[in-house]
């Protein structure tokens, strides 16, 4: 670790776990309905610590709903969902907020606060961690923006950014809390191939640096190829196929192969 990194420590880094945890996320029999429409239907998933799991699936198959269930943005109807060893449906608000700070969530739409500048957007998640003084805060923010190559946009408003830039600012904002689990909803959609590759590498380097476990939703097969330790395909609310990129590509089932075609 360089001295630079010790400066940007947030209090979350010091939160040692009381009991050792073997898996990051464990989902059993997850069901989610909107009205009469079933989106998830007995979905099971285990995410190991430090693993990069890519979720593929058609548009509307419920990928975003799945990761929203993990942070309880959407309440599930059935099934158990444990995140870092805690059953999230049993947590009270304070505990849930504590847990949420350890889980980073990149929204499909980036969800930047459009009344704030890029800098304020990045400072916002840190506002309740009082341990940083002004200079340290500045350092953390510029470091995070440098990681996504947008340091010169620091004083811009979100409305002045392009779609791809917003996405990257969103990513920087999510990574600033150094989460233990990252949930990426289409991190490379709308980016050019070069930036897209850079983002994929960034996702890998985040894992390397902080041993983050990640779920990455994507339609970008080249991105999936770079980052995936394991891939699952979501179909009809269930896990339709599972395996490494090569395993799925060599599958006998043409339908499975079709998900991986470039």
């Amino acid at each position, binding site marked *: 670790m360089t001295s630079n990194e010790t400066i940007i420590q947030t209090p979350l880094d010091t939160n040692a776990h009381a009991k050792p945890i073997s898996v990051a996320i464990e989902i059993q029999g997850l069901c989610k309905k909107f009205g009469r429409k079933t989106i998830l239907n007995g979905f099971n998933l285990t995410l190991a610590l430090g693993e990069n799991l890519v979720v593929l699936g058609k548009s509307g198959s419920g990928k975003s709903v799945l990761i929203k269930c993990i942070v309880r*943005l959407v309440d599930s109807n059935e099934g158990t969902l444990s995140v870092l060893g805690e059953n999230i449906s049993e947590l009270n608000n304070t505990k849930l907020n504590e847990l949420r700070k350890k889980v980073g969530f990149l929204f499909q739409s980036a*969800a930047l*606060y459009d009344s704030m500048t890029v800098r304020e957007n990045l400072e916002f998640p840190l506002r309740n961690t009082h341990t940083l003084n002004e200079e340290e805060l500045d350092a953390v923010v510029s470091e995070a923006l440098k990681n996504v190559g947008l340091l010169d946009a620091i004083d811009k408003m979100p409305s002045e950014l392009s779609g791809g830039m917003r996405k990257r600012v969103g990513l920087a904002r999510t990574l600033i809390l150094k989460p233990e689990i990252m949930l990426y909803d289409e991190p490379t959609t709308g980016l050019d191939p070069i930036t897209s590759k850079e983002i994929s590498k960034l996702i890998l380097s985040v894992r390397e640096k902080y041993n983050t476990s990640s779920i990455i939703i994507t339609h970008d097969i080249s991105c999936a190829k770079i980052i995936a330790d394991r891939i699952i395909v979501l179909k009809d609310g269930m896990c339709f196929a599972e395996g490494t990129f090569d395993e799925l590509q060599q599958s006998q089932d043409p339908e499975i192969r079709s998900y991986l075609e470039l």
Partner: protein
Amino acid sequence: MDKTNISKQEETDDEDVSGNKLVKGIESIFVEITLLTRFTLQFFRNLFTPPYELNELLKQCYIVGYKSLPLVGVTGFIMGLVLTIQSRPTLETFGAESWLPAMVAVSIIREIGPVITALICAGKVGSGIGAELASMRVTEQIDAMEVSGINPFKYIVVTRIVATTFMLPVLVIFSDVIGLTGSFLAVNIQGDVSFSLFFSQIFAKLDFMDVIPPLIKTFFFGFAIGLIGCFKGYNSDKGTEGVGASANSAVVISSLLIFIIDMMAVQITSLFS
């Protein structure tokens, strides 16, 4: 034969549908009231528990209060001017011209100032809050706050409601003062009354009950504007279309509430005087 059967069938279907619609309509009103009550309780629960978002509160006070000053000032001025010009002929027929300042002052301070200012703020501030929160909801900004472990209700809703509650009385006082100035000018169009005489005539007739109860009700007006704007925006869920709908219904409902509160305030005040 068949045809008549079918048309009869359709008719009963139609009746069914309109009957259903009525039931659904009534039901949705009750659902709405329940949700609003729960929203209000949630507001009070969040109001008194730390952390307090003071910076955001100040920012909202600036937006709600300071940014509304020009509009409120202009309408207040015109209100005072017009009211004075309109009242003069009537008072003249009774030879009670000297009552003009006091009469205008009482109507402005007791009723017209608070209600007009509140309605203008419902249109300007209430719709703004409704649209802003709805678009934050649609673009997942509220969700983003929630997942970063920050209570969006406290940050967004509580600050805005507190800001409108405390800024509206300030705006009303401002509007009253400007309105009386307008009235002074109007008096001087046809007569010649000095500034000090004008105001001493007013203060001779005004008493405690003319000033304090109207001021108290403006807090409720402000609360209603903020509450409805936030309620409509925060719970918007129909995409971009919902943004317009939220802004619209925020204005409609809060304007209606302002009249209802006004009516109750008048009833309560008359009990005491």
